[in-house]
């Protein structure tokens, strides 16, 4: 089954409810999805939970995959939506806690690293907002084209390009990239 194309596995999973075919798709793409969500959220455990949710949503929506773009692009779209939904939920939870007099520790933070070791990438991602972070990760970590990112984020290609440009500018002003460029 390892040589079968993604599109064929999707067709098998949809037409025959073949869980083994879907399992092969999960095996192929779990690393990229989990890496994407780990970088996006900064929390390994939460990212893995979100990855599970993402693949469960993907199973439910598998018949909506048209096969026009890449399967990983489609999966990352679901992963990003799952991330945003979970963020909205925790924001609402924080608001409810706030109303009853409690304060969430992470309140007001867009990106917080839940690991003891803060890497250069964590510092770099911390200066970006959610959209910029997601798009930069899709572009530089997952290697998606601007068209694929546009499909995944439901943003026009021009907006994707300008977000990447803005993200790069933010990174450039926050870190001395020129030293790394030639060294």
């Amino acid at each position, binding site marked *: 089954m390892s040589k079968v194309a993604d599109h064929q596995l999707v067709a098998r999973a949809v037409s025959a409810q073949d869980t083994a075919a879907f399992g092969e798709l999960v095996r192929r793409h779990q690393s990229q999805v989990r890496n994407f969500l780990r*970088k996006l959220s900064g929390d390994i455990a939460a990212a893995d939970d979100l990855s*599970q949710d993402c693949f469960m949503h993907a199973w439910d929506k598998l018949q909506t995959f048209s096969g026009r773009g890449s399967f990983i692009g489609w999966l990352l779209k679901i992963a990003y939506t799952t991330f945003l939904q979970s963020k909205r939920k925790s924001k609402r939870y924080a608001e409810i806690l706030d109303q009853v007099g409690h304060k969430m520790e992470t309140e007001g933070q867009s990106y917080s690293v839940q690991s003891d070791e803060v890497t250069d990438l964590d510092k770099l991602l911390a200066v970006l907002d959610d959209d910029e972070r997601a798009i930069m990760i899709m572009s530089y970590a997952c290697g998606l084209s601007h068209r694929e990112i546009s499909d995944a984020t439901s943003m026009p290609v021009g907006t994707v390009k300008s977000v990447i440009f803005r993200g790069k500018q933010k990174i450039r002003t926050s870190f001395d990239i020129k030293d790394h460029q030639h060294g």
Partner: protein
Amino acid sequence: MTSKIINMAERIKDAEDRFLESMFDSAPIADDGFSTAIVRKIRRRLWLRRLALPVAAMIGGAIAIKPLAGLVTAAVRLSSLLPQELLTATFSLVPQAPMIVLGAMLLAACLLGLRALDD
């Protein structure tokens, strides 16, 4: 042609792009049972969905059996109160009644069979 040019333009990377790629680069994450857990979860959910209707029907049947028996008894008693002429008149007015009942039963059996084949 235009899309090819756009793709080529995208592929031309400067030093900054290469630096960012190296920063974002990370080792692949080992599966370690992740995909197996997902597949197990999906199979469990499929089983639950398949079982939901028959289980609900059984529970509903178990709950409904006593009042249903009471209803049948009441109907029998009620029919004994009705004049015999009225009952015979109804059957003579609708002679297809047994065929309608048989047809409905056949239709229900076909629908159930189709559903089983679908599953």
